[in-house]
């Protein structure tokens, strides 16, 4: 059982390390594509992190179960047992929302990357910037 605690802690540490590496990639890499990939890794790490928050360690709860209550209406004892055994569904609800948002954002960023490549012929963020026509009214 102690091994499970070790595994849980290791996962949490691994996720934190992943966040640090992804952040480093986002802010330091020259390639915009690699920045977006780092961003994707960062977002997915956060999703796993949120799921971990709602996780029940088997040492504390004998057999964790999904948050589905089938005995309707159920007795008070049933509901109490349900509450102690099930994983927390709210982080899962957060993550499903975040995943949908990320889908929209990454599709948009992918489209922008294509446009960027079309204009500059490169995905390097430091490609020479043109003199801007800043007074143009549009």
């Amino acid at each position, binding site marked *: 059982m102690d091994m499970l605690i070790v595994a849980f802690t290791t996962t949490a540490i691994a996720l934190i390390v992943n966040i640090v590496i992804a952040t480093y990639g986002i802010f330091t890499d020259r390639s915009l594509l690699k920045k977006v990939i780092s*961003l994707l890794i960062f977002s997915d790490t956060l999703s796993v*992190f949120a799921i971990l928050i709602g996780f029940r360690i088997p040492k504390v709860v004998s057999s964790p179960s999904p948050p589905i209550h089938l005995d309707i209406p159920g007795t008070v004892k049933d509901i109490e047992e349900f509450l102690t055994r099930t994983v927390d569904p709210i982080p899962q609800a957060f993550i499903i929302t975040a995943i949908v948002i990320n889908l929209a954002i990454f599709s948009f960023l992918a489209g922008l990357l294509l446009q960027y490549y079309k204009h500059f012929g490169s995905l390097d963020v430091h490609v020479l910037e043109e003199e801007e026509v800043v*007074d143009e009214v549009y």
Partner: protein
Amino acid sequence: MFSAAIVMNYLLASAVTAFIGIATRSRKLLDLVAIAMATTGLILSISLMFNTINYGVSTYMFGGFRPPLGVVYYADFISSSLSLLSSFATVVSIILACISMDQSIRRYFYPIAFLLIAGVHSFLFTGDIFHLYVATELVTITSCALTAIYSDKRNAIRATLIYGIAGTAITSFLLLSVILVYGSYGTVNIADIALKSIDPKAVTPFSGGVFGEIVSASITALAMITWVFLFKSGIMPTHFWLPRVYRSAPIASLVLFTSSSDILGVYGILRIYRILFSENSVITSFRNTMLFSLTAISTISAFLSALLTARQDRVRGIVAYSTITQLSLALAGVISRDSEAVAGGLLHISVNALGDTSILTGYTIYMKNRDIDNFSSRLAKVLIMIGFLNLFGLIPIVPGFWSKALMTKGFLDDGNIVGVATVLISTGLCAIGYFRFAINILLREQTSKFKVVSTEGRYFLNTTILLLLIAIVLGLGIGLTLNPQILNIIVELVSRSIDVDTYIANTFNMVNR
């Protein structure tokens, strides 16, 4: 009730304009529907403002679920006044789009602009930190889309990518903060978190007591959220995206940014420091350290951006760096201990939005019409001058004077001499950029290298929007000059809005109204 109606109106407007844009080729119908729906939003915001002033806080429970179980909207004086500002900017932006944008682009502009404003209002009203994250993401992605709406402009694509990647990464830290807060407090309702951060033994219906160790989670979350909101308002040193975006985005988008999406950072910091982790929370010591750091950041940001404003000679550059300066001053105001400085800071957000909107609108109409319509051209010049005077803020007939006066008085009462010096010196430095540009516009010859676009059928819109802006800026300034008692009422209403006990009590005794 009004708060939810406003958000619904803008979501509906987004869907309807998207449908009309796809289904018909009628330019007039699309413009008419967009202006009508933006005006409906403005009327609803005015109603909300009156409701808030007359009857107190306006609240709405989604699906009838009581907090902390369900998502709630909470509209007090601060959020309703910023809602009014955003709704007004939407009307101006839509009219500006009619004046200055191609028909093919307007089909995309209207739905995205309405979606942005729906996100902004969700951010302003929400009483739930996860919903706050969703609203922030919505604002970020729609702001990016509005910047890159002319996909053939390479600098716009570049600016959007830089803003999009940095904005998404930083907003992800907001999600991480929400996860940490939920993991320790067991709730995402702002009032519930505020209550438990003051009294960790508090037990509320549905969410119960705190789950775990809240001090370190609160410290981490506060630090990350502060960084996120500094970025959203473009306060230095997280400002790198703002000048690029302001140089590349269409003018109609800039009006929306300066009046709605960019103000959210300062508003968010106010909410986080006054309500979520208030003065008596379990992290008081860290909160005070952060407030001290924020004061230093806002001071340095105001000075540096004012210096850069003085160096600009193009309107977009001036508006970009001036926005950073004015939002830095507003930030210094809202984090002050004095209620007058807080009210001054909030008023200054509106002043900056009105000033920038006046300059951008006046400039657009001036550049489009100067050789065709002399009346519009002269009126546009007047509006540009009023906009600069408002941002300069040393003449009492413009509201900019009163926001700076309130902040200065608040800083003096608080013994914050650095704050007073920041307001005065940054005003002087910005004035160099403002007046150099204003004089250039006044002395500019009528012939120009810029392409003259036909104003056929747009005369009415041009004159209406110019007169409306002149009337609002001068009306507000003269109203405050003739009746300074209004300022005391504003300070009183702001003080009530930032009282954490009132917020918690109103949320937990919530009825839809």
